[in-house]
């Protein structure tokens, strides 16, 4: 088990209705992709995290891939493709 902080931004934050949460992530959800699937499985508004949707992630403020490993104390963020500049 790994306690991580999870942040949501922009349209994804509005869709799931949550800015941030602290979650005890089971070992089998120890990657960005697995954590995303776990959150999506909550159903309802959380389907905004479904596989077909364009969702990006960062771990400890660095862009991450689905296979990026998550460790206790990490800050994981989910957000839509960026649109700055």
């Amino acid at each position, binding site marked *: 088990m790994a306690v991580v902080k999870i942040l949501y*931004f922009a349209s994804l934050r509005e869709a799931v209705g949550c800015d941030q949460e602290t979650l005890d992530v089971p070992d089998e959800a120890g990657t960005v992709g697995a954590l995303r699937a776990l959150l999506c499985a909550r159903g309802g508004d959380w389907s905004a995290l479904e596989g077909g949707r364009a969702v990006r992630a960062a771990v400890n403020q660095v862009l991450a891939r689905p296979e990026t490993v998550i460790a206790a104390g990490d800050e994981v*963020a989910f*957000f839509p493709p960026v649109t700055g*500049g």
Partner: protein
Amino acid sequence: MEEAFRVSVSEADFDVGAELDALAAGRSDIGAVASFVGRVRGGEGLIAMSLEHYPAMTEKALAGIVSQARVRWPLMGVRVIHRVGRLLPGAQIVMVAVASGHRGAAFEACEFIMDFLKTRAPFWKKEELPGGARWVDARESDDAAAARWDTDQP
């Protein structure tokens, strides 16, 4: 990141002329300064544009992009400023300025930083329109612009 290479995020507007002067102040080794300023475009009844960001990540991401540019080109100074918050049509959003010995490096690095900023830095735009607010969709052309640097080594 030393003094000549700076990134910042702020709600306040910026003074491009003062920033360009600061980049070159007291130096005679800089032959070229390329810069870019992005502004809020009006139209479709746009009332305002709000910029959200991921504060803990933003400056780190911008500094990382500048570091990548420095690996590719011999640069003498870089200044990146990105605004957040609510901006009206015509307002400045972002500026990137790059100082180098020659114009090729300055232009390329400035474009590179803009392309990467558009696709890697955690900012999101939301438009306020007469009918309500709407998040701006990412554009495939921005991904394509960033992707060209994957193979196009200078």
